[in-house]
């Protein structure tokens, strides 16, 4: 055991940063995005020798270039936001639902079923609400299965919901064999392409507007629900401390199941919007990884539904921009993934600098010691 013979301050010290003002926190976040773009530019130049400003121009064009692209971006934003909103109540309760992918698929499957079997016979005024209800129920049931096990047997919900994704994917793959357009094609194709039976209505000629409005309404609902309703309060209490919840007489099991059912039901809405509101078809890829990306969107917004609009936009903007780049410059699609990865790394990393202060050894105190 040798004594350290120097008496320097440590080179780097990390202390907790309490109460950073809002504007400063946002400044850090914006700085993180700027630095991320600079680092991306470096990567772009090294790997492709293309002018990074061209890159970013294309990125913006990919999102805002044409009217069609703007609507398509908004649709993607709405879908991402919808799944993030679905996860939020569960996450506020510290129920780590990572099964949104499967829950969305179950809702999508229910919607498809009704579109195929009743799409051309039922009045849309009855059919569409019916589709909404059935898909919400299907997704809610899918989500509630792990919740019941969690509530009664305290099983690990992370593993359980994750595994339910694979079951859902396989189940949809199985259903597709019944629904496939041409035998053996393994794809469903556009459902009711000619009659548009069961398609969600277009508003003012915009086929995505309906989806966007629904998700917007959901955002407002979720904000109020979490902040001002008794249910929202119970979710917070159970999430913070189950002991406290029991102590004041909250039925913890009931709150867990109710909240996860709500989480699943909103996934069902996402499934409905994806099938009946935009794709008009189903595949095992219908959820498109949103069930996982939405976890990050929800976390980055600190579970605040209004902030989630912004975090969804950031994620969607970079995703779409990056894939536009891949096509515009004839690069491998993985290039887009690299860029998205770098950008998210910086955005998430910036939270560290908001919550902690880093001190470097200062020169003058060292001089003072001698």
């Amino acid at each position, binding site marked *: *055991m*040798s*004594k*350290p013979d*120097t*008496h*320097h*301050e*440590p080179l780097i*010290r990390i*202390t*907790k*940063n*309490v*109460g950073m003002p809002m504007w400063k926190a946002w400044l850090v976040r914006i700085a993180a995005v700027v630095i991320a773009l600079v680092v991306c530019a470096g990567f772009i130049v090294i790997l492709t020798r293309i002018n990074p400003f061209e890159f970013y121009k294309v990125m913006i064009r990919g999102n805002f270039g044409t009217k069609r692209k703007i609507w398509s971006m908004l649709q993607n934003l709405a879908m991402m936001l919808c799944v993030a909103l679905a996860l939020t109540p569960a996450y506020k309760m510290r129920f780590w639902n990572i099964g949104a992918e499967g829950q969305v698929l179950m809702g999508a499957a229910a919607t498809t079923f009704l579109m195929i079997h009743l799409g051309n016979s039922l009045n849309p005024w009855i059919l569409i609400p019916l589709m909404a209800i059935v898909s919400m129920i299907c997704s809610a049931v899918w989500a509630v299965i792990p919740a019941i096990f969690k509530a009664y047997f305290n099983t690990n919900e992370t593993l359980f919901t994750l595994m339910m994704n694979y079951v859902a994917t396989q189940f949809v793959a199985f259903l597709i064999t019944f629904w496939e357009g041409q035998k053996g094609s393994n794809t469903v194709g556009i459902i009711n392409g000619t009659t548009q039976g069961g398609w969600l209505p277009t508003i003012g000629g915009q086929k995505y507007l309906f989806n966007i409005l629904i998700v917007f309404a959901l955002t407002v609902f979720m904000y109020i629900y979490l902040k*001002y*309703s*008794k*249910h*929202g*309060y119970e979710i*917070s*209490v159970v999430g*913070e*401390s189950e*002991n*406290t919840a*029991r*102590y*004041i*007489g*909250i*039925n913890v099991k009931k709150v867990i199941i109710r909240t996860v059912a709500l989480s699943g039901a909103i996934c069902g809405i996402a499934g409905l919007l994806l099938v009946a509101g935009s794709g008009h078809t189903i595949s095992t890829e219908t959820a498109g990884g949103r069930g996982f990306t939405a976890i990050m969107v929800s976390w980055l917004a600190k579970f605040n539904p209004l902030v989630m609009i912004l975090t969804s936009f950031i994620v969607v903007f970079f995703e779409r921009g990056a894939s536009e780049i891949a096509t515009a410059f004839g690069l491998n699609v993985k290039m887009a993934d690299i860029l998205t990865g770098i950008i998210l790394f910086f955005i998430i990393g910036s939270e560290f600098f908001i919550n902690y202060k880093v001190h470097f050894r200062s020169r003058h105190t060292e001089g003072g*010691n001698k």
Partner: protein
Amino acid sequence: MDKKVSAIELKGISKKFGEKYANKNIDLTVYKGEILSILGENGSGKTTLMNMISGIYFPDAGKIFIDGKEVTIRSPKDAFDYKIGMIHQHFKLISVFSAAENIVLGIKKKGKYDLKKEIVKIQEICDKYGFIIDLNKKIYEMSVSEKQTVEIVKVLYRGADILILDEPTAVLTPQETQKLFHVMRLMKEDGKAIIIITHKLNEVMEISDRVSILRKGEYVGTVNTDETDMTALTAMMVGKKISLNIERSEAKGTEDVLFVENLSCVNREGVKVVDNFSFTAKAGEILGIAGIAGSGQKELLEAIAGLQKLEEGKIIYKNLKTGKEENLRNKTPLQIRNLGIRLSFVPEDRLGMGLVANMNITDNIMLRSYSRGKSLFLQRKEPKTLAEKIINDLEVVTPSTETPVRRLSGGNVQKVLVGREISSAPKVLMVAYPVRGLDINSSYLIYNLLNKQKENGASVIFVGEDLDVLIELCDRIIVMCAGKLSGIVDARTAKKEEIGLMMTGTGGKNNE
């Protein structure tokens, strides 16, 4: 003790958390072969200061000298290298390991690992200072006092010359405390420098040679113990003179309100923690419950509050106005409340059970009442008014009602909790360790609040650890030992030693 050699010396130590000074310009010297008490109210920066010596925090300014040489302590490992050992309030032991395994854990030595050889060495240390402990016993089989012994032996085995004990007596019986003090005196004679943090003034007077006092992060002064007394120390600590008397009124009511009959319950592991326990609580009295920590007090209170399933027994609540009796057995807290029974409970784990740490004061005050009414939405106006009233009446120090309770100091957290629980004018008020970790001012404020509840005719059940307080505050004291009733004594005539013996099951009258 003629020639004083400083073991550790602090000069101008400061530490800021955010904008607030936790320690400001502190000077402190500890000599070899002495016991120094550090005295201060909660939030006065005692633990922060000790954490800087033991390498957990790094000071923002100031110098530390060990054996006269300036040093920098960057990590707990550095602290070990300088032979500083800290015994924390919360033990840091691995429960499935034996005492000896815990003691040798983390020490890097060249050559083959030979536990037997090390046990011999550890035993030598134990014999030297008079520790009595079975080194092969597993931690989970140990009592709190035994675990503490392991912690102390651990730092001695690592060669510590400077020992810091953070509130070591908080969890001990009077007998165990005496044993600890005996060991401390032996260590002192051996030339070790010992720093002890404690709230209990009588212990400060008994064990220490000198006392250093901190107040609000600043250094007030150091006095020799034999030249001071408890009143003077309190005045230095609080900054003003306060009286240390609990005004106990005569118990007025004699009517029984709560009957606990043959109550038994098991914990999660299936171990019987409360065993065939019976007592009655009267309106208008404070009924104390004494016992070593973990003797079943927690489960007993939780069973009455409807949080713990009963294996056997009855809990009868009698409404004194109507004479109606209700069995509370296996009723949930909500069902009890819906019966119109005003039963309040201040649990031991304030932030983990009584309150929600991340919620603000208003939302915490609302916990009991939020579900009232048919509306789907929360009503925050009334709770906010109540929160303001509690802040005002109990002098809670907080920036606003919107501050998360985790940002408040321990005493203020407790005031919020107690304030909420007594705001419903309870008929039965159960409190578990309500002054644990609280400073003198806050403690006496809580005692007075309990007394006021008693005068209002509430039946107060008080689980405490400080026997002096129990004897001074309560009317009757129930003594628990390993889940069983050891006896019931009259607090006005009871002797501390007698209760201490009953707590360990070696004495007592009403033994069954």
